């Protein structure tokens, strides 16, 4: 990113000395490597530092409104987790249901239309899907609000109502991927000899899919679900922007704009660890669902 917080906040008319003064006050003039280790050791102690913005220009002023990064992030993170969580609760069961049923009736009209439709939704970017929803469900038929404006006092029911469109958007962009993967993981397994054996021992179509194929398909399905969960959390950056939702994604975008590095770093750290933790979870599910790995010889 060109420039830093000092040049950004003081504007183009700032004198060189005032920029220097702000820099030394924030510690931006120190060498990057010691600064990195200082930040790292603070992070390990749970201290993400203070936000650059909102601080008083006069030193020692009682009205210093600079806030701790943690304070700033936690409410936003809660909002984002709420949005992602609700979207996941809608998208995952729906995707599994559609994927399994598409595998069950593969090559039928239903299967073709479901896989075709999911291809369209996966290919459309969030802002496009989001604005289509706004156009349809907020402008032409005003059922839901265009802006998902929540604060700490908003009740749970209102939250569901306000976040409906962002949830729809996130569901639509992630569901297709999960559904298609579930379908193909199951269909892959359907050509195994043990599936033919199950058929020859009288198993119904439903049993073949749910009892015989699905348990062997969990590993790839878990993999794609967790990737999409991570994508929802991080992809919410765009959705939050579209619906002006006070989540961590919007905070990050705003902070990047201001070069408010401590906040950006904390957000990036949260996003990165989400990926790591969710992938670890997928691997664990892969092990638990496979008796070969769970019970060695």
């Amino acid at each position, binding site marked *: 990113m060109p420039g830093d917080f000092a040049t950004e906040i003081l504007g183009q008319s700032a004198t060189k000395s005032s920029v220097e003064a702000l820099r030394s006050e924030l510690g931006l003039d120190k060498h990057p490597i010691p600064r990195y280790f200082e930040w790292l050791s603070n992070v390990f102690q749970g201290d993400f530092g203070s936000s650059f913005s909102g601080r008083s220009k006069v030193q020692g002023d009682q009205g210093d409104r600079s806030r701790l990064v943690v304070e700033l992030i936690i409410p936003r993170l809660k909002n984002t987790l709420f949005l992602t969580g609700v979207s996941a609760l809608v998208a995952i069961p729906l995707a599994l249901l559609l994927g399994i049923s598409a595998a069950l009736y593969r090559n039928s009209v239903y299967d073709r239309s479901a896989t075709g439709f999911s291809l369209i939704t996966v290919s459309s970017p969030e802002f496009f899907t989001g604005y289509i929803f706004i156009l349809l469900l907020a402008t032409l038929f005003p059922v839901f609000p265009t802006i998902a404006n929540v604060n700490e006092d908003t009740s749970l029911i209102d939250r569901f109502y306000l976040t409906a469109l962002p949830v729809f958007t996130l569901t639509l962009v992630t569901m297709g991927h999960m559904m298609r993967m579930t379908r193909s993981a199951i269909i892959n397994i359907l050509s195994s000899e*043990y599936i033919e*054996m199950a058929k020859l*021992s009288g198993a*119904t179509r439903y049993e073949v899919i749910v009892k015989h194929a699905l348990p062997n398909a969990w590993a790839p399905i878990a993999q794609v679900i967790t990737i999409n969960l991570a994508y929802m959390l991080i992809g919410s950056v765009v959705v939050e922007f579209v619906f002006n939702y006070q989540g961590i994604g919007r905070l990050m975008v705003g902070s990047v704009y201001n070069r408010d590095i401590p906040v950006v770093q904390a957000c990036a750290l949260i996003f990165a660890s989400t990926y790591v933790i969710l992938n670890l979870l997928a691997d664990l599910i892969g092990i638990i669902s496979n*008796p070969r790995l769970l*019970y060695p010889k």
Partner: protein
Amino acid sequence: MTSNNKKELLLEMKNIHIDGFSDERWHKILKGVDLNLYRGEILGLIGESGAGKSTMGKAAMGYTQPGCKIIKGEIFFNGTDLAKLTEFEKRKIWGTKISYVAQSAAASFNPAHRLMDQTISAANRAKINPTDLLRKDAVQLYESLQLPDAKNIGERYPHQVSGGQLQRIMTAMAMSPRPELIIFDEPTTALDVTTQVEVLSAMRSIVDKFNTAAIYITHDLAVVAQMADRIKVLRYGEEVEESETREMLSNPKEEYTKSLWSVRSLIKPEETNNDYMLSIKNIDAAYGSSKVLHDVSVNIPRGKTVAIVGESGSGKSTTARVITGLLPQTKGEIIFDGKKLSPKLEQRSKEELRRIQIIFQMPDTAMNPKQTVDEIIGRPIEFYHGVKGKERETKVIELLKMIELDETFLDRLPSELSGGQKQRICIARALAANPDLIICDEVTSALDQIVQEGILKLLQKLQKDLGVTYIFITHDIATVKAISDEIVVMYQGKVVEQGLKSKILNPPHPDYTELLLSSVPEMDPDWLTNLLNKRSN
């Protein structure tokens, strides 16, 4: 082997025509085959691969594989025409009235479920008995199939038991709902001879016990002779002949049937000498931390054939890997033509590499599917001899003639060849290097008997013409008789004995050799009975 006085017809298949779709067109798999089976009777269905015997076996259930369809014919089971039933109606018969035992038990059990749940699933679905009774019954079946730890083995997962045990558990699974008919589809083909004997006797006694009718599908005449009351021979989707087992063995009518066991009549006079092409001395080898070869010493006389025999896991193929340098030994040395060979492949000279060639079991996986025959055979000619252009082409054609093929094959891909032709190309590729020693690793086990015979004859002819030395790794004693001069018997990574063919094959034997040799099925319907009597004494 029950005598049927009543002769009540259980299954009657009339004029069965089945087509299969592959390579973008429909092929005829079965061309009007009839089949009758009486209650309590075992019918053997034999033929080479592609004869349609598996398709026939599945059709007896009214089932066809995806991509196949029944064009014509009637399948009366207990008087009902299965060909006319809906999927829903057939499912009520599958697994309960007719059950199926597949070739590869390891692939046919669902890896995600415990064996017990799979054993009783069909009977459970049909609610034949309460679950706990079915479980008890399954344990009894396990016991009568002589499975170890019958009480608890059902709690294991498929990967936790051996192939022979899985095959017996699958028989228990087929028997659990007490079906009227069991289809055995090559149930012992994937097993070692020593394991095969146990599985065969277990299957035979349980089918006998419940007087279940069965169709036994195999390509091995000696095996079917032990199991079946009657034998039907199929070829190219048509019936060749059918008769009582004893009659069929003593007096086959058709030329084709006679040729089916001709490979067993192929015999080579043994010769040996003390001029060793290769000797390996006190070799130890390991995969990671598990040691698989223990103090193995073998001498290979020049221009002769040494067969290494043993069951799977005995270390035969590992020995080959050590000789070729693919797996460096941890102890001992390899002397090749008087000179010591370095254990590691990378440290051997090009000349040393050229002189030792290997032919693998599966020609399908041993050739690059995207290369033509010309490229496959031409590459070692270029690589070892530096021959290019016209001269290279002449040499490739010469090699093709040597393996009894011709230049029309030059532009073909492996997928356009039959199993036997593929293996011939692999032989030509090994010959292209002009080697002194060829290691043949189970080269005929994936092939049909008649094709096997052709390959074995070819190898013998090449030895006579070129004086090449063979190490012949196999688990098939008939092949050993047909080709070897000397035999090495291996068991659990150790050499049990080495000697001239006549010495090894005739008594007295060490215990393991005795077990191995006596387990090889013979073309005598009483062989299994006699063997079991002998062993129990």
